[in-house]
């Protein structure tokens, strides 16, 4: 007995010591971060800390991670591309001063800007652009898929020509995903990305994959050198921790904030909150290759059965708008369609007419926990008319594998069109060859091919409009909502512009704020 009570006392002492230790540690960390903040504030243009929505796993813009939001963000800070999107979605030149197609739109000539150098001082020439393009195609990452069988050649030191086997009018738009590295970087050269040499507004000051990316201004940048001394991009996965960090001043910019948290932030005088319409749209494909969803009438009825207007109004009052087409209004090729009205009785009647089997359970797959409430609400509405839907939250890699294998009945994605051109959304995903939705319609294929081959913007918009009408009326998927991205930043920050792709550009910030 004595023995055990002694042991207890010992344990309590240990616990008390541990608690004291934690208290000391906590005190330390508070002091340190406080000191940092003050130091930066005193400097005027100090350090800017941002916490985005997704982690940066790799800096290689040509690699397997090339299409991920984190790598795209790093790419635009560190490297230059031929063309880049302006905040309104139109294309402006980055490395390219001008570009034009040949008569049948199978070759695009880009004229490069003069006097661009890399951060190590060497000049950027057409040879570097061609080598980078070849590297991207060799690695065959997700971005290479936009340029099937395309080749790039250097016409002179300041001109490159991109040739495609079929007419492709969307080449400039697709090239916003293509970043230029110095020539001579082998495809598997990972050491280069420990301290990459680029021609973007920033250089790397430190990088821990999935955790932090520290950026310093690039004095050799051909545009205006960023005014901030340092930009730190941190990954804070937990939403509440991210918002707390914003409010304590630990980070200066946060984006991708859910609606329910916006109210609290808007009440804070020290913060500016703004939402920008993005290219992302909630896209819920039906798997038209499973017998239950083969019939367009069934797919339309399911869409009709969900009260998306109420769900959006309740869950996304500020960042959601009912969608009017398969692509968002900021994308080239957007053509408004007739809204699908909520009518559960008609939906049930249509399903009964089509002989729908109400005893089956439809598998609704998705990847991110943030969409769970939305999908539970959709499942609830479908349950009302007797259709059972099981929302399946999958880990990203499993989700992608199942997505490509069509191992789902309804697939949910927040689908963005980073090129601001319907070609990389409708043109890439809805053809019979793409086999992404199980839907195949030769008429649609023909429209998409013609739209892709036309250089005339009005004609392309018209053709994509016709394609959208088929996709919409055949209910290849449900297109409930276009997404705005909510940004909140420290009100002291000057010159910050929220970006519609969720890839904010910190080179324009003139005052680091706190």
């Amino acid at each position: 007995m004595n023995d055990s009570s002694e042991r207890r006392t010992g344990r309590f002492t240990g616990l008390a010591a541990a608690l004291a230790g934690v208290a000391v540690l906590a005190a330390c960390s508070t002091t340190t971060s406080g000191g940092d903040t003050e130091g930066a504030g005193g400097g005027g243009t100090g350090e800017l800390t941002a916490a985005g929505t997704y982690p940066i796993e790799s800096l290689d813009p040509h690699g397997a991670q090339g299409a991920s939001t984190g790598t795209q963000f790093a790419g635009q800070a560190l490297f230059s591309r031929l063309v880049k999107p302006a905040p309104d979605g139109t294309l402006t030149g980055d490395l390219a001063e001008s570009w034009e197609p040949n008569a049948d739109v199978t070759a695009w000539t880009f004229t490069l800007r003069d006097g661009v150098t890399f951060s190590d001082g060497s000049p950027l020439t057409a040879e570097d652009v061609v080598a980078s393009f070849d590297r991207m195609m060799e690695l065959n990452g997700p971005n290479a898929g936009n340029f099937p069988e395309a080749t790039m050649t250097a016409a002179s030191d300041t001109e490159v020509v991109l040739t495609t086997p079929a007419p492709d009018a969307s080449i400039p738009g697709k090239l916003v995903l293509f970043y230029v590295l110095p020539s001579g970087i082998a495809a598997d050269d990972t050491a280069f990305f420990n301290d990459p040499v680029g021609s973007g507004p920033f250089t790397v000051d430190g990088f821990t994959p999935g955790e932090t990316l520290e950026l310093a201004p690039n004095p050799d940048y051909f545009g205006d050198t960023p005014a901030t001394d340092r930009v730190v991009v941190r990954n804070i996965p937990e939403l509440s921790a991210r918002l707390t960090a914003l409010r304590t001043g630990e980070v200066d910019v946060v984006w991708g904030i859910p609606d329910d948290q916006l109210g609290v932030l808007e009440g804070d005088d020290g913060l500016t909150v703004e939402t920008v319409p993005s290219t992302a749209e909630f896209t819920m494909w039906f798997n038209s290759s499973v017998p239950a969803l083969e019939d367009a009438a069934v797919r339309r009825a399911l869409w009709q059965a969900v009260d998306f207007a109420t769900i959006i109004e309740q869950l996304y009052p500020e960042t959601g708008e009912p969608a009017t087409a398969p692509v968002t209004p900021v994308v080239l090729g957007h053509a408004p369609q007739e809204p699908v009205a909520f009518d559960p009785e008609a939906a049930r009647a249509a399903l009964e007419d089509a002989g729908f089997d109400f005893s089956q359970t439809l598998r609704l797959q998705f990847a991110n926990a943030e969409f769970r409430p939305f999908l539970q609400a959709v499942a609830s509405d479908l349950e009302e008319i007797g259709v059972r839907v099981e929302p399946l939250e999958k880990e990203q890699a499993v989700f992608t594998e199942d997505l490509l294998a069509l191992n789902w009945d309804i697939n949910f994605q927040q689908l963005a069109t980073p090129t601001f051109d319907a070609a990389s959304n409708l043109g890439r995903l809805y053809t019979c060859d793409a086999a992404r939705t199980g839907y195949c319609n030769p008429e649609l294929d023909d429209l998409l091919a013609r739209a892709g081959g036309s250089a005339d913007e009005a004609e392309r918009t018209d053709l994509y409009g016709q394609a959208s009408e088929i996709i919409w009326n055949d209910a290849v998927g449900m297109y409930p909502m276009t997404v705005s991205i909510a940004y909140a930043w420290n009100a002291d920050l000057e010159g910050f512009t929220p970006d519609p792709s969720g890839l904010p550009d910190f080179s324009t910030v003139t005052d680091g704020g706190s």
Partner: protein
Amino acid sequence: MTAPPTGHEAAAAAVSPAVTGPGTSTARRPGRRAATLIPCAVVALYVLVALIGPLLVPYDPVHTPLEDRLLSPGSTTADGSTAWLGTDGLGRDVLGQIVHGARTSVLIGAATVGLSCLVGVTLGAIAGYARGWVDAVLARVFDVLLAFPAILLAIVIAGAFDRSLLLVVVALSATGWIAFARVTRGVALSLRERPWVDAARVMGVPGREILRRHVLPFTVGPVVAMATLEFALVVLAEAGLSFLGIGLPADTPSWGQTIASGKEYLETAWWISTLPGVALSLLIISVGILGDQLTARHRHGRRSA
């Protein structure tokens, strides 16, 4: 959370000086006796809620009345009923989630402890009574498994397969049985040297019969005390798994899931996470105290015998 390695120790060490002599002191002071009944009453209440609560408080996890979302406790919902404990981010009743979650927790707790107990006591008794190489092998197996962090092993098992209630029970039992096995082995080791076991052996009673009639009955005391403490740990571990989203299927109500779904609303709608959290803490504290009391009674009983 106490891992099974300390679980065995906890059963022994939990006898605090304050509860050392319940037999003598409680007899003198009736007030204290009533106080010792509180944890028992609380646990009984939870079991009652788990058994009949779901019949009285309806809850449908699939149905999401969005117009009622984030109502504070006591508000009136759109269909005229009262949300006594508020609603969550999808308009579902928090009281309903707590009541149905209690059933899930008690069910998983009981099933896991039952399974662990069956496996642990059987193997422990065999190891302790048989001695020799059987004991050597089994005891090493216990030791090896003890080296695994219990919650980590549970996460690995629960994460590797499709979510289901049975899977959670198996994942939590995977290490839960070791504590029972060690306690039972200890008791069996000392019992096999007692005169009545010798006598039975001399009279030619078969080993299995000796184990069943002359050894196992004496392990009941410590095993029951152990089971109570283990129950609290299992309920906590299940809530932890559900909180991480790898435990139960999404349509099975669970305290851990409710707490997780409310963690983004802590500032604006505290009731979603707080109330199931309070329900969970109260159950675990009560079960813990009850376990201490049982341990004390068992020790006291053995000493006076």
